[in-house]
Each structure stands twice: as structure tokens, then as C-alpha cells.
């Protein structure tokens, strides 16, 4: 029987990878991919603790909310990026430094 340790280590790895992706890439959509990594790391942690720690389902329910929020976030972010792309013909977020539309 494995404890929560491997899951937590994996979630740390995912978190660091996600952060590295967000930091290193300038493409907005790839950054969104990095954010998905981070969110999944968090959800994985929650589920692992729910199974091995608390003994109830609150962790799983919280992970469910993570999925819900991630999907909402992805939809809105993509809509924003497509508008962004429409305005300045790129998804390079460094180019989006003007305050006027």
C-alpha cells in the first residue's frame, strides 16, 4: 500500500513543470497549458489527501471544483486570446502591453 507520498512528489513535479512552462513560453495558449498543469497538480494533491488523510470525500469534491473552474477559465481565456489575436494578430503576450484596445 502506497502512502500519499508518491502522489505529493508527483504533484510537486507537475507544479514546477507548469511554472516553468508559464515562465519560459511567451505564447498565451502555451501558458494556458502550463496553468492546466498547475491546476492538475493541485487537484492531484487534494485527491491523494482525501484518500489517505482525511478519510472523507471533501478532497475529491474540491478536486471536482478545480476541474469546473479550470474549464471555465480555459473557455474565457481562449475567448480573450482569440480577441487578442484578432486585434494584434499574435498571441505573444509581451505584445499586449497597450492599455487601449
Amino acid at each position, binding site marked *: 500500500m502506497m502512502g500519499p507520498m508518491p502522489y505529493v*512528489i508527483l504533484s510537486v513535479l507537475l507544479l514546477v*513543470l507548469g511554472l516553468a512552462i508559464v515562465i519560459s513560453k*511567451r505564447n498565451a*495558449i502555451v501558458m494556458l*497549458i502550463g496553468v492546466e498543469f498547475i491546476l492538475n497538480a493541485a487537484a492531484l494533491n487534494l485527491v491523494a489527501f482525501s*484518500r489517505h488523510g482525511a478519510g472523507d470525500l471533501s478532497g475529491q469534491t474540491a478536486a471536482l*471544483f478545480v476541474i469546473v473552474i479550470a474549464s471555465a477559465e480555459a473557455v474565457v481565456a*481562449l475567448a480573450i486570446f482569440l480577441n487578442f489575436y484578432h486585434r494584434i494578430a*499574435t498571441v505573444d503576450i509581451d505584445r499586449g502591453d497597450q492599455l487601449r484596445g
Partner: protein
Amino acid sequence: MLEKAIFLLFAVPTVVAGVAILLSKNIVRMAFWLIAMLIAVGGLYFLMGAYFLGVIQIMVYVGGVAVLLVFGVMLTSRQLAPKLRPGPMETVWLAAVSMALLLGLVLSVAQVRWVQGPIASPNSPAEIGHSVMGDFLGPFELASVLLLVAMLGAAYLARPKVPVQSPEGSKETTI
């Protein structure tokens, strides 16, 4: 033993996917690596007995969010795409910061003395439903409002605004 093997079966792809995204230059491949990661995490949920969550992960993430992402990638990936590789100096900094973060987190995690609580019983969707409608009723309602707002926002952002401009002049080409 079997559990460890299955854990590795799912854990290795997630990490590989992350590294591949870091190193890759092709955005569409990145999106497909993300999907691999999502499916593997779903598998981990299955391994932990959270069947409902695993299924929802695959359904919502892979069937919805990831497809949407691929869609967005395809709509925007063109020659004007921004750089996907950091410069050499940035790479060094990135590696240093990531490693530091990783080491710090892993060390702190390793120092924790885990108290093995009772293993949560194999759950049914009904119990999760009770949990959502009981302890988490407030967040649940908030999430529904959030989804509504997100839907409206996305629809607003993607609404038609510009009338059609006649495509590049009205010259009639008669052949």
C-alpha cells in the same frame, strides 16, 4: 507492487509530457502532450479509487477543455507565433529557479511525517453528490454562477461585431 507499477505507468507520462512541452517547439504537439498528461492524471485518480473524478477528468478536460485548446492553437498558430524557446540566459535562470523550487518543495514534503489516516471507502457518485449538496453547497452554487458568467463572457467576447467588408475591392474578374 502492482500498484507501484501502475502508479509509474501513469506518473511517468505526466512528467514526460511536462518536459516535452518545455522542450518542444510545435504548439499543436504541446497541446497533445497536455492531453496525454490529463489522461494520465485521470488514470491516477482511478488508481486512487476516485472513479467518478477520473471519469469527469477525462470527460471535461479531455473531451472539452483540451479540444478547445487544440482548437485555439490551430486558429492562431501561424508564422507570427511568438518565440517558444527561452534564450540561453533565460534558460539558466529558469533552470535555477525551477530546481530551487523543486528541491525546496521536495525536501519540505519529505520531512513531513505522514500520519496514515483511514483509507477512504470506495466512493460512489452518490456520496460525492451528498458531499456537494451538503458541505460544499455554497461553493457549488458559486461554481454554477461562475460557469454561467464564463459562458456569458465567452459568448460576449466571441460575438459578431464587425459587419462584412466586401473582400478586397469589388473588381469583377471575368474569365
